[in-house]
């Protein structure tokens, strides 16, 4: 899908992935998360291949995809607390309550998640990445279905993360007001469909 794609992000930087629909922004984020394997080439963290210690790499990232990964039978707080406990260090105190307040979900915390609107679900998913620390955030369309207040909250969260030395990679259509570099990946996209590959559809 991509050829000759080569980039690096430093501490405290935000990288904007831009490109038209279907140019591979989401695919690149999934590659960066290690959910997809590159056919050729490597992803490195401080010059070390991420495949050398996958557990360590995974503990360094937070990924926000298109889906909100919310269990509708659990309450807002139960959903958030589960992921915070799975992802946090055994010593680290997770900040579930603060994350709920940050995304104005604290008054909904005991509500079963099936009653949430699309925007509230997105906020809950974003609160997840603020509930415990991971240096690299991979955000796929994080501002979809958010209202303007929530977009501001998200922008503030990204800026704070940046100041703490975190790294953020965002694929988005809307321009968030954060200090960032951008990478137009459509230049590297090399996507040919061979019709015979799809014969068995």
């Amino acid at each position, binding site marked *: 899908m991509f050829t000759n794609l080569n980039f690096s992000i430093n501490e405290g930087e935000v990288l904007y992935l831009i490109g038209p629909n279907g140019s591979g922004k989401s695919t690149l984020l999934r590659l960066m998360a290690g959910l997809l394997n590159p056919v050729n080439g490597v992803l490195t963290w401080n010059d070390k291949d991420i495949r050398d210690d996958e557990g360590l790499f995974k503990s360094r990232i937070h*990924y926000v995809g298109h*889906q909100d990964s919310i*269990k509708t039978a659990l309450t807002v707080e139960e959903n958030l607390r589960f992921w915070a406990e799975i992802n946090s*260090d055994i010593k680290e105190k997770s900040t579930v309550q603060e994350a709920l307040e940050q995304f104005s979900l604290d008054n909904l915390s005991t509500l079963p998640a099936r009653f949430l609107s699309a925007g509230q679900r997105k906020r809950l998913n974003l609160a997840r990445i603020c509930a415990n620390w991971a240096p690299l955030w991979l955000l796929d369309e994080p501002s979809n279905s958010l209202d303007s207040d929530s977009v501001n909250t998200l922008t503030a969260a990204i800026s704070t993360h940046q100041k703490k030395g975190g790294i953020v990679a965002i694929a988005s259509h809307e321009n968030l007001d954060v200090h960032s570099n951008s990478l137009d990946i459509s230049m590297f996209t090399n996507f040919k469909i061979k019709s015979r590959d799809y014969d068995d559809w």
Partner: protein
Amino acid sequence: MIGKSVQVFFKLIQREILLAIRHGADSCMIVLFFVIVVVLFPLSVGPEPGILTRISAGIIWVSALLSVMLSMDRLFQSDYEDGGLDLLILASQPLELIVLAKTVAHWLTTGFPLIVISPLLALFLNMDTSGYSTLLIALALGTPTLSLVGAIGAALILGARRSGVLLSLLVLPLFIPILIFGVSAVDAALTNLSSKPQLLILGGLFLTGLVLCPWASAAALRQAAE
């Protein structure tokens, strides 16, 4: 690090059980399905106690197999649909451990209730009381293996159309050894022979499954996420 793994393991089991309780009807339906399938046999082969006694162990095992099968397709499907599967793969703990935790929770919410209700069904089928204890032990050793093997199938069918039927085709043939030894253990006990060899084989199958199945399921899940 190991402390964290253990913590994640139990957190996941706790969440799965909480979900099963909130969706209480799901587990109840599986148990009711088990009861109904067993009850169909006296209606179809006739209520003659001699025939029922002879085939009771087989009926209970086949019904248990079908019930476990029926509950299997939801094991990873909801995580796959809501995006939670990506996050479970991205958790810093090994995916094999996560799969094992989900399988244990699955057994606790489906296999275990089946074991609890099986003596009642054995009574319905006029099974000789000398077979009860062996039936319980055989089910206790066999149903966890069903969950472990079924988890591979449940991971493989993610994203497929008509997944329920496909799952049966994939998994039921693999259940056959458990069925054979499970039934013959009870038959041995009913004819006053030792059922130890069959139970040992069931135990061996369980241990083998415990070691191998989570790896296979985890590999299938990684494939599904790509």
